[in-house]
């Protein structure tokens, strides 16, 4: 196996996640898409850890940190969503624009 297929896979997954994050109107879906992007990044980290001339465990460590932070992010994101939904009765990202200008 070589490095490239993994990087390519990660790139494609990243692109799909990005598409979801930019087009979906439901905040939950957007969050899910972001998780997919994070997963793509994790694939890269682990793949590099594996394929570097001198394999290095730190890639995996970073991936773990990533996962932890992603979990925290999802928790906070969903909490905001619930709070938002309760007050505005919507989970549409287009309604979350009170901070413009």
């Amino acid at each position, binding site marked *: 196996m070589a490095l490239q297929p993994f990087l390519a896979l990660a790139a494609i997954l990243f692109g799909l996640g990005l598409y979801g994050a930019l087009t979906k109107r439901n905040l939950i879906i957007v969050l899910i898409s972001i998780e997919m992007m994070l997963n793509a990044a994790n694939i890269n980290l682990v793949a590099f850890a594996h394929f570097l001339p001198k394999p290095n465990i730190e890639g995996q460590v970073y991936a773990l940190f990533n996962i932890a932070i992603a979990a925290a992010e999802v928790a906070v994101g969903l909490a905001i969503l619930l709070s938002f939904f309760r007050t505005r009765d919507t989970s549409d990202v287009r309604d979350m*624009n009170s901070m413009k200008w």
Partner: protein
Amino acid sequence: MIGLTWLVPVLPLVAYLVLLFTGKRMSEVAITTISVLAVLIGFVISITVVSSVAGHGPYAPVVYNWLTFGPTTITMGYQVTNLNALMLLVVTLVSTLVFLFSKSYMHGDERFSRFYQYLNLFVFSMLGLVITSNLLELYIFWELVGVCSYLLVGFWYFKPEAAVAAKKAFIVTRVGDVGLFIGVILLYLGTGSFDFTTIFAHLHHFSSMQSALGAMGRDAITHLMTVQTWVTISALLVFVGAVGKSAQFPLHVWLPDAMEGPTPVSALIHAATMVAAGVYLVARMFPLFQASAAASETVAIIGGVTAIFAASIGLTQRDIKRVIAYSTVSQLGYMMLAMGVGAYVSGMFHLMTHAFFKALLFLAAGSVIHAIDTQDLFEMGGLRKYMPITHATFLAGALALSGIPPFAGFWSKDDILTAAFDSGHYVLYAFGLIAAFFTAVYIFRVYFLTFSGTYKGSKHPHEGGIAMTLPLIVLGFLATFAGFINTPFAPLLGNFLQPNGPVGYDPPANWGLMAISAITGLLGIWVAYSLYSGGKRADAFAKRMGILYQLSFHKWYIDELYAAIIVLPVVTIADGLQFVDRYIVDGAVRLLGEVGYAGGVSLKYSADGQIQTYGLISVFGIAIVLIVALLIGGVL
């Protein structure tokens, strides 16, 4: 006593500082005593200095290092030469008398001590000016006397005319000062020194200046100049300084206005000492003018023109002090004429006698003004009865000014006219002679209008106290007899001023010319008598003269001319430039700011608050960057 010369200027400075810190609590008598003592001691020292110089000749300068200035070191100090010693004597003598006179003239003024402070500061500066050891030091004191003049002219600052006159005096003389300033710099650059002796030594062999000039500047003009033009330009610039200070045409306009100051100030500063500094400067820099015929010729012409020009204005003025002021301008013109034709001794001689009789005339005028509180000639008259001493001394001064033998003015003025005639300047001689005629007319016009006829005012005039009359008497005595120190029979002053052989051009006595000028003076007096003694004929005469009278009365409209061609354009340009600055230069800046602001405002609508839009734009941004990176190659 020669070692004490430095005390002469320092004493008034000390008096100034004492008055500055304690003057407010002192009585008028104490203030006057301190001040008069300061200059009187100086006068005594000056007498001994003159006597030792007469025996010894010029002394070497006494200096200390002041500032390291490029490759040279500027020194400050003093130098006693024959010329300096003479000036020292004249200045201290006149100062002492004016200080004494001011006591009663300024009596009761709430800023009495301030007045004496300024006077002391002035005398310090003036004395420093006359015994200076180098050109830069001369310039420093030159400016200091100017600022003292500014302060004293504006002494009654609450009078708007005085405020304007003070500013005008400073700025007009400043024009001249800048000329001198540049002249000093050019001389320094040419010779590498500020010392008179060094500069003069270079003037004797131009080749030494050639190298200094060659090393200078990337400016094309320096390469076009020969040493001769360099010297001429320097001399002319130095002369510009003298023109400003000595109120020569065309910078004479400040002096008559300066009469807004207290009369003792006019006597001391604007008649006897400071305005003569211009002549002194030319005398001090005499070798420089000798080295450039063109410069000397200019000096002579300006002097001659000023003499007749100012005298013509003096004929018609109504203000007693203004008449005398124009007379001063005119007489200074004589001195410049003397310097210009090379008559060094005659010029200095006239400077000295003029200091005496003009101070006398001003003080006598001051005595009159003090007595009747007006300066308008046509409100005076018949004062002979009330003020006999003032009358007598004024008459002596007037006779001296008119050049009637054997009064002081006759000898010195005649010297100058003879020199002008002998050196071949016939036109200038004619100017001088006509000016002499005018002089006799206007001063006796003043005399007759003031002292003869009947008194027209209401206030009861009376003679001032001893402090007023004593200076008048002393000066009257000097105005009468001072001329005898340099008669053709015994040229004492000439010998004193030329210890190392003749300087400049000293014409032999010419009895014919003497007679002509004496007759001219008498003729002038007769004209004045016939026109003004009765009072009636003057108006008719003025009408008959028509436009000439108007020209003279309005001072040839010079003030109006300057207002129109200098002041108005400068102020207009300033206003215009201010507008440009505010709305065009700064406007461009603000426009730039506004464009940025407007851009920001319009772009803010593109930020719709949708995070997905931002993300989309970022995607395109990144895509573009990546495409560019790909196209440039090597990066990806």
